[in-house]
């Protein structure tokens, strides 16, 4: 074998080795890069200053936050990170100190939260209302009723399927209060015509649409919900369907790491003129979804 051929073979082998090494190390580098990649800079994530807002699925899913929060961030440089859960869970997160501000919709729970010292003070922010929706066929014949508890009683009487959140959310608690007013113990019916999803509003609506069932939903979520099937609003306008939202700063005396200053700035803005105007200007399909009512 001539020297040239041998040398050529060695060169080929070296090149192959080199290519392999490059391939291997590039995979490694890619992995490391992917791992260390900073979250892409966006207005929400950029600032070192941010607060965590524990809120409800109704406000997040309707698109309200996407509409108003950028204005607050633009003005103050404070990003707002929204964790959207049911009211009960949002308050629990706040109780653990894992949020700086809560914005929820169950007045008595909010007041208890403050009374127990977890929150500083509750302030009115806005309201909308609940609507009772159901299939177009309306087997319980409640369409057009103004009396929500009466409609609930009729549903129970006909045994038409009703889907409940069953997740201790503000909507769930409002619904339970309406059953109470109607004088019906739904615990007994659970699993028959009364179905508890234990899930968020959207999931519950998807189930109602699939089952052709009645359910209670806040107007904001309903307006922005896309998978309606043949569901429609059947009962609305009862004053007992009123759905007020309150905002509370988590008590910094209990949880020293709470960003009290930024949290207060947010609450002041939200309940101030600018925030209230921002809420009022939010539209879903041309309809106003939330009505500001801060004093």
């Amino acid at each position: 074998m001539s020297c040239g051929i041998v040398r050529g073979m060695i060169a080929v082998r070296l090149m192959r080795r080199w290519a392999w090494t490059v391939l291997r190390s590039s995979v490694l580098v890619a992995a490391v890069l992917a791992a260390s990649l900073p979250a892409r800079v966006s207005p929400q994530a950029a600032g070192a200053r941010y607060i965590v807002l524990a809120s409800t699925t109704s406000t997040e899913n309707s698109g309200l936050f996407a509409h108003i929060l950028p204005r607050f961030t633009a003005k103050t440089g404070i990003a707002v990170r929204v964790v959207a859960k049911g009211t009960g869970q949002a308050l629990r997160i706040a109780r653990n100190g894992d949020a700086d501000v809560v914005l929820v919709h169950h007045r008595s729970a909010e007041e208890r939260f403050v009374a127990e010292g977890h929150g500083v003070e509750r302030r009115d922010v806005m309201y909308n209302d609940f609507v009772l929706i159901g299939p177009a066929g309306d087997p319980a014949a409640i369409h057009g009723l103004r009396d929500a508890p009466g409609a609930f009683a009729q549903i129970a009487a006909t045994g038409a399927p009703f889907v409940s959140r069953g997740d201790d959310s503000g909507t769930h608690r409002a619904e339970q209060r309406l059953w109470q007013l109607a004088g019906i113990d739904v615990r007994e019916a659970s699993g028959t015509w009364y179905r508890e999803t234990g899930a968020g509003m959207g999931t519950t609506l998807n189930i109602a649409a699939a089952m052709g069932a009645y359910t209670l939903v806040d107007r904001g979520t309903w307006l922005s919900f896309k998978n309606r099937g043949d569901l429609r609003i059947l009962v609305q306008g009862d004053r007992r369907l009123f759905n007020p939202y309150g905002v509370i700063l988590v008590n910094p005396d209990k949880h020293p790491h709470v960003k009290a200053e930024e949290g207060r700035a947010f609450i002041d803005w939200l309940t101030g003129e600018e925030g209230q105007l921002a809420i009022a200007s939010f539209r879903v399909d041309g309809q106003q979804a939330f009505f500001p009512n801060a004093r």
Partner: protein
Amino acid sequence: MSDSITAFGRAWALIAAADATLIEIILLTLRVSVSAVAVAAAAGLPLGGALALYRFPGRRAVVVALNALMGLPPVVVGLAVYLLLSRSGPLAPLGLLFTPAAMIIAQIVLVTPIVAALTQQVIEDLWEEYGEQLRSLGAGPGRAVFTLLRDARYSLLTAVLAGFGRAIAEVGAVLIVGGNIAHVTRVMTTAIALETSKGDLALALGLGLILIALSVSVNAMAYGIRDYARLRHG
């Protein structure tokens, strides 16, 4: 029906437009899952290898437990990590809740048992072939574990990929500890869950298609590398 047809359209439109939010979500998804799998592999590979070779009292129980942990419910893991990282929990000072780091931790917990259990099986099989030779050469168990891990590296890729698949497809745990915060902790699966709950099923399905494509391409890449290397190394 129409949803599934529009889903392709929506997915394609998002990709074609290189939608900034979508890219951000994809990058975060990869960052979280790749980091989690890297850590899980660093821990799970030696752990599985050691379990395959070392004999100690209670080993069977550990192996059974490990295999059971492969099916760990993500929601439980999410809850446990949440309680750990919460401001009321033992790791409160880290302030990691609702950050990508918390999601990585949850996924590490989910993925490590998968990598370890699959590694244990692979290494045990390989030990059948190598055991006598390695013992004859005087390799202690520690050295033997690393020799076997090295020689089984292409088979172990499958174990790591199984872990990656679990991590990237998981929603329960990251939703709880990440909070699905827009631009901060929103990954593919939580975005899909969100769009589903908004009733935008076409968009949700579209995102799902993109996630599947993502997962398939990572796997295809890994298997491609493995096959090439097998051909070369015999």
